[in-house]
């Protein structure tokens, strides 16, 4: 999965540069879809909410558009290795203007499960 980190780097671009980037991006996605290497991805609105606390009692406005941690959009890839995913991320037209892309393997099973099993195993060893 590719997560686009958005700190609104595109605000510094001129209308022409933006238009060019948008067409490049479109062509890039179309090529990857034609090659069967990407599933439909979406952009995220720059608004939203953050839910936290027991029973989700805190609901605050977020995320913070200018933050380096904010996610601007995502693409789910259909590739075999992280190297392939990195190569695709590197071919993203937006990188030329700044911005960054987080490349994350989708877990075959929930990491919580894996960790719970590890702990259970450690406890078992401790009891031997």
């Amino acid at each position, binding site marked *: 999965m590719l997560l686009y980190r958005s700190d609104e780097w595109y605000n510094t671009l001129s*209308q022409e540069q933006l238009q060019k980037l*948008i067409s490049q991006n479109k062509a890039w996605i179309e090529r990857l879809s034609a090659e069967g290497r990407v599933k439909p991805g979406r952009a*995220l609105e720059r608004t939203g909410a*953050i*839910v936290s606390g027991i029973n989700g009692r805190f609901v605050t406005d977020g995320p913070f558009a200018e933050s380096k941690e904010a996610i601007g959009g995502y693409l789910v890839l259909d590739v075999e290795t992280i190297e392939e995913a*990195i190569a695709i991320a590197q071919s993203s037209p937006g990188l030329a203007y700044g911005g960054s892309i987080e490349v994350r393997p989708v877990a075959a099973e929930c990491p919580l499960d894996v960790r719970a099993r590890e702990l259970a195993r450690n406890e078992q060893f401790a009891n031997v």
Partner: protein
Amino acid sequence: MLLFRGNDWLKSLSSEEKQKVTDQWMAWFRRLTDESKAVAGNPLEREGKIVSGKNRVVSDGPFAESKEAIGGYFLLDVASLHDAVAIAQECPGLPYGVQVEVRPVAAECPVASELKREAEFATV
């Protein structure tokens, strides 16, 4: 879309508690899928890479134990942000410090729509 943030909360749990949260989380996702409110979702592996800048530099990341790191996501099919927030409030990880970011999926790229708005102003 729900983005589950934070993966430093796990450390403080016993294996029993972890198992309990995992089971609750899976059951929650299954129920949302059965109700056609969730259309996709995945946990993400804890390691990954960051690709950035003109030179397309690859670095290690995200940072395994961070409040900001994204641990997984659900793609929902609901009518409003309000509905999505109500679902986020059911997240079994919340009592342990997980934060759920709720984000409307854009009909089109926000950069493109901004550009269109500017073009409209320009022609008025």
